[in-house]
């Protein structure tokens, strides 16, 4: 079992979720209104939320490791175009 953590701008969230579903992940959790500071020093805030350019979203996916290759193929172009990060780690059900 793998855990995938994705941080993207809320603006691209729907696009990201659509790709996750295309790959066939069993489910996902979404935390909206995620603020902080990016690696390049960019401050992520909710200040522009009124315009639709809100804060970030944190998407957590638990899935079988066999899906990782398809996930990388679907998500990397998206992250490269719009920005965002994705990390994979091992997960174990309690």
């Amino acid at each position, binding site marked *: 079992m793998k855990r995938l953590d994705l941080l993207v*701008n809320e*603006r*691209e969230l729907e696009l990201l979720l659509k790709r996750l579903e295309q790959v066939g992940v069993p489910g996902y959790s979404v935390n909206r*209104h995620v603020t902080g500071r990016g690696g390049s020093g960019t401050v992520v805030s*909710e*200040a*522009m*939320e*009124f*315009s*639709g*350019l*809100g*804060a970030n979203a944190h998407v957590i996916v638990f899935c079988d490791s066999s899906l990782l290759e398809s996930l990388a193929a679907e998500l990397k*172009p*998206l992250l*490269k*175009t*719009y*920005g965002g990060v994705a990390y994979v780690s091992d997960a174990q059900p309690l």
Partner: protein
Amino acid sequence: MDTALVLQNLLSPAILFFFLGVFAVLLGSDLEIPAPLPKLFSLYLLLSIGFKGGVELQASGLGSDVLLTIGAALLMAVLVPLAAFGVLRTQFDVFNAAALAGAYGSISAVTFITAESFLRVLQIPSDGYMVAALALMESPAIIVALLLVKLAAQDRGAAAETGWGSVLHEAFLNSSVFLLVGSLLIGLLVAQYSPSGIAKMEPFTGQLFYGALCFFLLDMGIVAAQRLADLQQAGAFLIGFSLLTPLVNASVGLGLSSVLHLSQGNALLFMVLCASASYIAVPAAMRMTVPEANPSLYISSALGMTFPFNIIVGIPLYLSVIERVLPAGAL
């Protein structure tokens, strides 16, 4: 410029609350508006202005003068981004030039609403069909900006290519355009078939309106001041562009207003539409369709410089010029 007009604008509650937001940031106050509220107030302002515009449009009808004004508005929405792109290309790459051109080709509904409130205070009449011009000027610049990118950019990555379906969806169905046009149509229908509904809506769309505008401008003051640091990094050219463009576009707007024989109130609203830049619909669309462009450039210039310039200096300046150029009795 008429000093009394400037003072009346500067000392209006809306502008004073805008300054309060600016000072909160500059003085390091912990004042902040919880994120969902500015979104709620921006939607409220669009709903109210759309509904009232629809009611008034039903009363005025779609005569030739109305159609000509709307046609002129659409023409400006196409010409401004093309001209701006030519200027901006001297300093920026295709993507940033196109995104900035899109922002300046589109409009700021809040600047329009502030101008309309200013006219109400001065008891200068304007027509509801100007709201239709407002609604129709939001989208064309988005399409022009993307056309410019498609024509001028080479070796664009496949991932960055956006289909026309998505672009048109973003241009015409983004939340602000959708709500504004929808509310306009509702206002038209209610005025035509259920006039008693106008009185029912009045406490919400009428009496609360100015207070909500002040509250929203308080937040805009905070956000605009937060953007000033980004603008310093953008450089003198963009700062100059964001201050001169409204003046040039407003001058063209004045010329068209004169040709169209617009009333003083309508002329001010038309000039403000030409002079303002979008920091809501266009940035959201550019983020999706031109992700190569740097959002801090097009948001900071439109929101950090052009918006404050227009609401603080522009509106009384434009009205002052209108009073000298256009006769008060014009239709």
